[in-house]
């Protein structure tokens, strides 16, 4: 269906090709998964299928890409529109009209289908994707998962033979992701659509793939094979595969179900090992983080004299907690975004906020930094009410890395960004740069922040926020778009921060990250706290929020592959295995 013959792509102003020597055939009716670390050209490869890559993005493509016999060299994207449906990373950038039904019809209108046909297909697609009751809704009012489904639906209506998806589930909560994947599977099975998709969250998708294409490193030629074969050599792999490799299971399991069948022996062996490693809530000897230069360092300038200086002084923590939220309610218009939320976080503690899209996670984080004023209840961060405290003071108490880290970046070089952060925080010159080199080694000073990869940008934003050394650190959906390597680095960094006494609150959909990092999990639903407890207790019992390792070893409460590995290797009673 899709053929790549000796394809190389080189963008202008780069010294080496993004893709080179790609030879690839995707047969009809298969779901093919494209994997690889960030920056290896996955999006470029996907763009080449729809013709957007040479025609729209510029750059030079050598070789030949044909889709169902049509050469993308001679066919512009619009002439492939009846054949290839493309959904990019950001569904919002995909929409042309503003209501669901019009959006579904847009592609068909462009192709000039007869009104009767259009009407029938829109109805079919609304049912197929479960969008029927949203048909008249403006797209802007939909949640992330709904938007993603509308985006997929909008390219399905022209009945393309090929569907190209770039990270379709990254922004979604686990339940919404399963919805989308179920739809894709139905398309492949019932309609014979060929699906080519790239996705970082392999734990969600690898079991559905018929074939996997691995791009191991930039410019390297791709490896294609069955999922089990490719996963055996892949540098990126989901926990289920990692566990399989650790236990030495031969045909590597790809789904929790396969793994469970083979895990009986492992479970038995683990049952003999005392217990899952001592769950580390907060390393209790953690001192409450020497408060960062409260009022002494601020650079003196005029506004400061008029500012609320007395507010700066009463900094100390009332009873050891970094933040304390009681009976918090937030209303936006008629919508109650949060209701009666109570939460306190101790120094050194890592808390994961989970819940479906729109449950109020981001609202809670933004309330903690004072961008939203609580409607009822009280919020204290480091003893201060955030919404009534000067931003400059607040930045020393709490730092938030927003969902889109690039919002924090204004300057045009990393060095300028660091200098600005130092002066903002009143930190001695160079302290931000030191953090950057620690979190993000090997990035030269004169790099433009926009040229950094997703993971690097996150690290830079994190460094900027940490320059003020806030005892409370908030991260909103930090692993979106990160590959496993970048994620592992992030986990390392956050662990170190927590052990230094920083309290960390993450809002995330990533159950594996939660399992690895969080001491405590708080689940929000409809703006209320529905669960709050140690990670193991909250997560293991929940079908949606349990990490793969926990599901595989179910009655036992292991959360991560690392725990299992440590348990198998360290204590001597058992016998070492491959």
């Amino acid at each position, binding site marked *: 269906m899709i053929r790549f013959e000796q394809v190389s792509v080189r963008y202008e102003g780069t010294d080496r090709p993004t893709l080179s020597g790609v030879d690839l055939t995707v047969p009809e009716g298969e779901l093919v998964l494209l994997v690889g670390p960030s920056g290896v050209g996955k999006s470029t490869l996907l763009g080449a299928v729809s013709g*957007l890559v040479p025609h729209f993005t510029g750059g030079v493509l050598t070789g030949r890409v044909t889709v169902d016999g049509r050469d993308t060299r001679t066919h512009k994207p619009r002439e492939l529109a009846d054949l290839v449906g493309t959904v990019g990373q950001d569904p919002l*950038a995909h929409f*042309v009209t503003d209501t669901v039904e019009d959006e579904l019809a847009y592609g068909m209108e462009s192709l000039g289908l007869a009104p009767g046909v259009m*009407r029938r297909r829109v109805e079919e697609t609304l049912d197929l994707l479960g969008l029927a009751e949203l048909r008249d809704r403006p797209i802007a009012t939909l949640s*992330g998962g709904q938007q993603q489904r509308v985006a997929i639906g909008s*390219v399905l209506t022209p009945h393309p033979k090929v569907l190209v998806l770039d990270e379709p589930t990254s922004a979604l909560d686990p339940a919404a992701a399963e919805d989308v994947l179920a739809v894709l599977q139905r398309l492949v099975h019932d309609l014979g659509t060929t699906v080519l998709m790239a996705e970082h969250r392999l734990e969600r998708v690898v079991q559905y793939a018929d074939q996997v294409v691995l791009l191991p490193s930039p410019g390297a030629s791709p490896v294609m094979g069955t999922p089990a074969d490719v996963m055996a050599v892949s540098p990126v792999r989901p926990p289920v595969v990692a566990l399989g490799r650790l236990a030495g299971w031969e045909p590597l399991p790809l789904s929790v179900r396969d793994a469970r069948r083979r895990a009986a022996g492992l479970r038995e062996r683990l049952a003999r090992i005392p217990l899952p490693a001592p769950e580390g809530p907060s390393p209790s000897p953690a001192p409450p983080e020497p408060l960062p230069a409260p009022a002494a360092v601020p650079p003196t300038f005029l506004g400061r004299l008029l500012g609320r200086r007395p507010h700066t002084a009463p900094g100390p923590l009332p009873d050891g907690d970094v933040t304390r939220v009681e009976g918090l309610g937030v209303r*936006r218009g008629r*919508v109650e975004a949060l209701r009666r939320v109570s939460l306190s976080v101790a120094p050194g503690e890592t808390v994961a906020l989970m819940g479906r899209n729109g449950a109020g996670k981001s609202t809670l984080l933004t309330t903690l930094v004072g961008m939203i004023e609580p409607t009822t209840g009280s919020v204290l961060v480091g003893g201060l009410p955030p919404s009534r405290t000067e931003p400059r003071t607040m930045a020393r108490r709490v730092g938030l890395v927003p969902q889109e880290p690039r919002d924090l970046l*204004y300057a045009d070089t990393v060095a300028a960004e660091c200098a600005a952060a130092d002066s903002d925080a009143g930190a001695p010159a160079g302290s931000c740069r030191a953090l950057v080199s620690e979190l993000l080694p090997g990035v030269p000073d004169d790099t433009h922040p926009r040229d950094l990869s997703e993971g690097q940008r996150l690290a830079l934003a994190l460094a900027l926020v940490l320059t003020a050394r806030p005892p409370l650190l908030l991260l909103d959906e930090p692993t979106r778009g990160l590959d496993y390597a970048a994620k592992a680095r992030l986990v390392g960094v956050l662990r170190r921060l927590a052990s230094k006494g920083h309290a960390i609150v993450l809002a995330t959909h990533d159950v594996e990250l939660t399992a690895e990092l969080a001491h405590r999990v708080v689940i929000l639903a409809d703006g209320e706290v529905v669960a709050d407890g140690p990670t193991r207790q909250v997560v293991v019992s929940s079908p949606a929020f349990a990490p793969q390792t926990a599901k595989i070893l179910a009655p036992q409460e292991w959360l991560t592959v690392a725990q299992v590995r440590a348990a198998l290797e360290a204590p001597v009673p058992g016998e070492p295995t491959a």
Partner: protein
Amino acid sequence: MTRTTGAARLSRALRAPEATRGNALPAGAWWLWALGLAAAASRTTNPLLLGLLVGVAGYVVAARRTDAPWARSYGAFLKLGLFVIGVRLLFSVFLGSPVPGTHTLFTLPGLPLPDWAQGVRIGGRVTAEQVVFALYDGAKLAALLICVGAANSLANPARLLKSLPGALYEAGVAVVVAMTFAPNLVADVVRLRTARRLRGRPTGGIGAVLQIGLPVLEGALERSVAVAASMDARGYGRTARVPASVRRTTNALTLGGLLGVCAGTYGLLAAEGAVYGLPLLLAGLVAALAGLRLGGRRTVRTRYRPDRWGARAWLVAGSGAAVAAAMIWAAAADPAALHPGVVPLTAPVLPLWPAAAVLIGLLPAAVAPVPPPASPKDSEEQS
């Protein structure tokens, strides 16, 4: 007995149904209604009538708007109207006005201007007459704006496009996409300003605006490019193969027609060319329309569920037209009632018949389909 059931059936048939895609009023009907009200407003300076017009528009908006994002623009237009009145008053007070008056309210220190600036005045005497005149004048403009705002919040502007001829549709889509640039820009500014707060910087001030200006523009540009890519990949701008002769004829007709329209208009306006002006204008129009029609052959696009003009649409559009017609007629019949005197200051009175005519504009609040109740949870938050 039969009569009661008959009446019951009639009242059931008359009661407005709940709005769905199928019975949605064409955007054009709402616009005609609103333009009718606006035309009526342009014929009077009577503040009571203007207030009545604004009230009618406001009532219909309150009764029939949805909770779509564009439906929230009514408040913005109201504020804009008040702003216009304020500006008009301010100009009148500081720059004076040609309205003679005897009731001096206060005197501002005047600024002597050189001879060549004759007719321009800064400061000086401010009379009650001139203030009232400015107030009436500003109110008229504000009422016009508010009527347009009502149309904007009742009908999705993008759907007006559905009524464009095929040859213009693609251009129309481009315009609409370009127009979404502005609201997105505002959203970006808000987001980046809050992000500044995260870095402990003050969010106000010129410095803040300058610093986030570039990232905002960059972001907006990136998004526009992304939308363009998406449109391209979804078949925007696909054309059918058309014989070269047809293409050439289209070009000749369109170009020639537009030239004809220009020349004709010039002829009409230039007084001495009135003889050939009108025929030239008409011929140009016909040629241009034919060109558009022929050009439509190149586009393959079809329309999905175009809005239908039903009885309700006619009633809505007709009510607006009726208000306009009644007011134009009243302006001709009794100009004094519609333009309350300023120079001898008199209290405006509400003329009975024009006021009753304005109330016809309330008809849409009864006949237009009722939008469904607001969804309980409008998940505007994204996480």
